[in-house]
């Protein structure tokens, strides 16, 4: 209990690494350094944990899974390049969202905190309840309060899970808006569908 008052001259970092690995490989959610410290009843300090995390990250970098920091902590993920193989045996996937949902998400992400009225002002059309619900149920946006104006509208913001699911640590890691604008010049080429399997087939046919 009071061991953390003593200085631990040399924690067995190889053992620490194995335990961290076991915890991170089996965790359902990302784990923070604070949570990871509890693995050792506080006998390994945060600096040592961070050091070992970086080592682990390096060790794994050449393999099919990688250790990445996201908004709520550290976690292993399969490198995206392997997804096409895994898709061959997996069943269900989260849906791709409609433009209405994606635009709503973008406005919440880049302009938060926003009310539904704010979103409608930007989009120029009413925002339907199913559109907002899709994002709330996904756990990507949440109500963080109400604006003190008539009707007391709910104020929305993105969640930590939103960042986690996009493998981001913070909102700063979202694609910057300015770049998007200048990229507009080159739009026609850039907007070709990236997964152009169809066009390939057509080329074969033609």
């Amino acid at each position: 209990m009071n061991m953390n008052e003593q200085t631990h001259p040399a924690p067995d970092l190889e053992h620490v690494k194995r335990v961290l690995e076991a915890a991170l490989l089996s965790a359902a959610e990302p784990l923070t350094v604070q949570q990871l410290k509890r693995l050792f009843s506080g006998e390994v300090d945060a600096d040592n944990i961070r050091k070992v995390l970086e080592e682990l990250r390096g060790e794994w970098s050449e393999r099919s899974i990688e250790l990445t920091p996201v908004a709520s902590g550290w976690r292993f993920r399969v490198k995206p390049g392997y997804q096409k193989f895994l898709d061959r045996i997996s069943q269900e996937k989260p849906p791709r969202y409609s433009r209405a949902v994606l635009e709503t998400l973008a406005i919440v992400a880049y302009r938060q905190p926003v009310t539904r009225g704010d979103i409608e002002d930007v989009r120029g059309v009413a925002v339907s309840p199913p559109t907002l619900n899709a994002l709330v149920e996904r756990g990507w946006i949440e109500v963080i309060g109400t604006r003190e104006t008539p009707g007391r509208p709910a104020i929305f913001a993105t969640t930590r899970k939103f960042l986690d699911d996009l493998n981001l640590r913070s909102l700063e890691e979202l694609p910057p808006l300015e770049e998007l604008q200048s990229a507009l010049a080159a739009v026609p080429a850039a907007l070709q569908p990236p997964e152009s399997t169809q066009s390939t087939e057509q080329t074969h046919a033609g």
Partner: protein
Amino acid sequence: MTTHAANDALAGQAGLDLALPVAKIRGEPMAELPADLYIPPEALSVFLEAFEGPLDLLLYLIRRHSLDILDIPMAELTRQYMEYVEMMRATQLELAADYLLMAAVLIEIKSRMLLPRPPREDALEPEDPRAELVRRLLEYERMKKAAYALGELPVAGRDFSLVEVYIEQAIAERLPEVHVADLSEAWRAILTRARMTRHHHITREQLSVRAHMSRILRALAPGSFVEFSALFEPERGVPLLVVSFLALLELARESLIDITQQSPFDPIYVRLRSERATLTIA
């Protein structure tokens, strides 16, 4: 050609509408495409569904006709926009109010452009009537691009998988720990509550004692024994328990009930004292 228009519209739905080859606009000379003035209603509806609203349609018209978004020719834009609105009306598509509202906004801006602008009192440049529209169009376009970029980001579970290795023993549910001191504490709490009860409620709520006497009498079916504790409604709180108890004592004092106990610590039973029963026993 009609399916072509529909295909274009579908491409637009996928966020590609800037690359849309144009659907035909009545009266618009279009050198690169043969003029085909008619869009059948079914194709038109698909075409229009590709737009997320009036701002989206305006952006399309501006980009399509290479209009300068910072110096919009209002007459031209309004005319093109109104043609779409007319087509929607002519084909009796359910026209979203947002589209009509935008039409009004465009016409208003256009008319203000024709009028000399009154000098502002603060002697600044008179405001361009198009400024607000331009600001909205740019902001919408920015968010539309951001939405497209967000949609392209890899998402957990869809574009990459998470690692969750099986753990053999399900993590044992952690059970609460209880120490002897907790028991003492609990007992002290019971006693304290009992003391508070004694102090508190005897002077109060005397009136409700009669009400509870009635309640108890109603609960006692003729001839049957009811356990003492069953006559209380503990869930309604300690004060009521006390009142109920007083009510029982009063009923006994008034010889309306019998309270019996076989031996110490046995359950206590209560029953109605009936004339007949008394007589029979006597």
